[in-house]
């Protein structure tokens, strides 16, 4: 068998296994700890290098160390939204149950990252710009993203019937995705206090390696943490959604018997 079709077969099978809640739950039981450990190690290394090894910035002094939480959080806030919108679209088009679960479980995590980006940004802005907050394009659009996350979460939990909730939430999530490019390019389109692309700039990152390495580690650490938290939340939601099914009941009764 040629490698292309083998890969395709593998992807196809995994897709179908992940699409079934029960399979997902079983797989997640193994992947969750792996993601957790990876996230922990990456974050730990990143924090060590970022706090101890990276040199202080010649302009900003030690305050630049906020970058190691601000940029991963800000970047994740966008990435998670794209994930949500993609999952929502898949759910709407192919009616895949698990896609909705991924979308709705990601939303609180994305909102947390957005809030973190806003808060750490404000904290960083105070010494650098001399103000906590201004109404420029990047900050404002990031704030709107936070509202959008709230909207997605609130829409899902507002409905009693799950199918309706999923559809309504997904519609909103898909429509809202226009905000992501606006946030990303806001620094180019409008004049802004916020600095332009530094890490993902054209022609490579404009940053010395000993400052960049911890940042990359932290970004991956955040990403694995997102995966870890997503698996935990999705497992909970699958348990809840499938509470009528036999396998969940068996799971719970086994649980009761072993704990007592």
């Amino acid at each position, binding site marked *: 068998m040629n490698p292309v079709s083998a890969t395709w077969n593998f992807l196809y099978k995994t897709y179908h296994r992940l699409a079934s809640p029960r399979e997902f739950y079983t797989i997640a039981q193994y992947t969750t700890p792996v993601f957790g450990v990876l996230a922990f190690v990456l974050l730990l290394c990143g924090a060590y290098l970022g*706090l101890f090894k990276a040199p202080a910035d010649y302009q900003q*002094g*030690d*305050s630049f*160390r906020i970058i190691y939480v601000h940029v991963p*959080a800000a970047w994740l806030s966008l990435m998670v939204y794209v994930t949500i919108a993609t999952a929502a679209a898949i759910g709407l088009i192919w009616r895949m149950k698990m896609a909705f679960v991924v979308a709705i479980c990601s939303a609180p995590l994305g909102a*947390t990252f957005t809030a973190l980006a806003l808060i750490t940004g404000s904290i960083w802005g105070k010494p650098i710009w001399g103000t906590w907050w201004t109404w420029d394009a990047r900050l404002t659009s990031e704030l709107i993203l936070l509202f959008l996350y709230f909207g997605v979460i609130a829409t899902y939990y507002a409905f009693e019937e799950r199918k309706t909730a999923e559809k309504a939430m997904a519609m909103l999530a898909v429509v809202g995705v226009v905000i992501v490019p606006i946030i990303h390019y806001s620094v180019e389109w409008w004049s802004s206090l916020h600095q332009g692309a530094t890490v993902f700039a054209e022609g490579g990152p404009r940053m010395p390696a000993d400052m960049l390495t911890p940042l990359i580690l932290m970004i991956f650490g955040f990403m694995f943490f997102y995966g870890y938290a997503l698996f935990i939340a999705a497992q909970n939601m699958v*348990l*809840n959604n499938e509470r009528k099914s036999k396998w969940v009941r068996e799971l719970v009764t086994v649980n009761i018997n072993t704990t007592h």
Partner: protein
Amino acid sequence: MMNWGEFFNMGGYAFHVWTSWGLSLASMITIVILGRRKNAKIKAQLANQIRREAKINSDNQEQ
């Protein structure tokens, strides 16, 4: 070795750096703890429901 006092001072930006890092850490920990708790809660609820179904069944059989 380094000077810990100086390290915590962060060149005068202690407040800014430590609140940022602290908040990030705190929110990650909270997310994980809440996830775990939710799991326990869902299972407890389910167990309660199974108990209640047994009650309904025995009530139906009584008649």
